């Protein structure tokens, strides 16, 4: 049996290529079909597993890029606003990176990467595009330390944006989340401020120039003082978010910086108006498109003159005259109806 099998194998080995291929093809087409199918499915499964791994890797990298894109977009927006503030201030400021430690007491101070070499002086205001951050307390050659508004010693004379009410802003020394709010104390009792009123620095005291946003009114606090009001403010800037700030130099502060934030407010207002305009335009476009589609559908239903289909119902769009409002001159009295003529007896 061994000799027969070996001989058959040797014959198979030395067969001419076409015959060998034909015999192998015959086997593949009959008894090897199920095995070949099994092998094919196994290889497809393997490729699918590998492709799944690859697609998961691609999806993960895309997700990571999307996350980084959001962070980059936020950073870009923040820096753009800072550039806008720098352009508005024009001169007399020092841009700085704010280093936040995460230790005890770091909620009250921040270290800036600029110092006296860059022209920073003690008691200079530290600002961000959103408003007031704090004040320089200590200056080294290459760095400086600023107290930020949650610091218990922080004070700034402030007023409402319209200049009607004045007071002093303190950190709100409450408990829990309200610890990171501000208080506007000493507002004259006759000056009632509505929630949402913008409070800006008043420029009194010589440290903080006039017109820097400090916060917005949240509510009035009930106090024992009967002669003045105290308001709770939402700060304009969260110190933790202020990673890049500007140190306003004292000589620039004397010149006044209110216009810088007014420019910012104006640009924000322009953006809101532009957004509103685009919404209105889009609404008008969608209305016009719907009307055009309605007219087109009616046009389809209308019979063609050459079709000869007399039985088809002729549907015509209703013709409505344009409705025009009566035009009346603005200063003319409304017309009175003419009385009917009396019958002559």
């Amino acid at each position, binding site marked *: *049996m*061994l000799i027969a*099998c*070996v001989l*058959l*194998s*040797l*014959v*198979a*080995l*030395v*067969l001419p290529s076409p015959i*060998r*291929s034909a*015999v*192998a*093809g015959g*086997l*593949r087409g009959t*008894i*090897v079909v199920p*095995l*070949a199918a*099994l*092998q094919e*499915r*196994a*290889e497809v*499964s*393997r490729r699918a*597993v590998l492709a799944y791994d690859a697609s998961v890797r691609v999806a993960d990298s895309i997700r990571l890029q999307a996350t980084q894109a959001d962070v980059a977009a936020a950073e870009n927006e923040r820096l753009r606003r800072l550039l806008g503030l720098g352009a508005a201030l024009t001169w007399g400021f020092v841009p700085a990176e704010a280093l936040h430690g995460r230790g005890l007491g770091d909620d009250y101070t921040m270290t800036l990467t600029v110092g006296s070499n860059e022209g920073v002086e003690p008691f200079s205001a530290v600002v961000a595009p959103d408003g007031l951050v704090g004040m320089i307390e200590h200056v080294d050659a290459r760095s400086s330390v600023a107290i930020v508004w949650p610091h218990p010693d922080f004070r700034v004379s402030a007023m409402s944006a319209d200049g009607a009410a004045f007071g002093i802003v303190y950190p709100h020394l409450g408990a829990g989340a309200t610890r990171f709010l501000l208080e506007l104390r000493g507002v004259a009792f006759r000056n009632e401020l509505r929630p949402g009123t913008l409070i800006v620095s008043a420029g009194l005291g010589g440290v903080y120039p006039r017109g820097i946003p400090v916060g917005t009114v949240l509510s009035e606090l009930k106090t024992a003082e009967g002669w003045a009001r105290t308001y709770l403010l939402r700060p304009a800037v969260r110190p933790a978010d202020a990673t890049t700030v500007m140190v306003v130099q004292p000589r620039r502060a004397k010149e006044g910086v209110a216009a810088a934030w007014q420019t910012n407010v104006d640009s924000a207002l322009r953006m809101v108006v532009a957004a509103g305009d685009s919404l209105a335009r889009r609404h008008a476009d969608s209305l016009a498109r719907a009307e055009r589609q309605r007219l087109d559908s009616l046009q389809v239903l209308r019979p063609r003159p050459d079709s000869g289909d007399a039985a088809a119902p002729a549907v015509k769009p209703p013709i409505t005259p344009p409705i025009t409002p009566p035009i009346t001159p603005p200063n003319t009295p409304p017309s009175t109806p003419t009385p009917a003529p009396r019958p002559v007896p």
Partner: protein
Amino acid sequence: MNFARGFWFTFVFLALVVLHYTLRPVLEWRASIDFLSIAVLLVAVRARPGVATVVGFAVGITSDAMMPSAFGAGALAFSVVAYAASSLKAAFFADNLALNAVFVFLGKWVGDLIFLAAEHRLGGSEFLAQALLWSPLAAAVTAVVGLGVLMVLRPVVGTPRG
């Protein structure tokens, strides 16, 4: 071999053939497990040399159908290995596990050497690398798996006759 043992033996043989065409392509190891060798050796230690040779030839020619360039090489290798294994089983196939592993290892390696020599595809350093590096590695992996199969199968189909 009674009917139940014959059924289980046939089932395991077919399962090994199926694994060769399903698990092996999925693993795609360079030194891969040769389930066909295990199946042929399993038959060889339980059948007479003539029957084992025919089974080896059938398995070999079936596997050759997938690669017409070496058509006949697998049949030759499996026929010789099956005949030799069936003839030498009294010497090799004892209760000693290490001897069983050596049996499977040698069966696979010798089969590979015959196949490589018969197909005439590789030459020089490639042939040496395949014959002396990858084939022994594949034979070792196959021996480990074959040993597991034999250990699982022994209580079901009993010890082979000498």
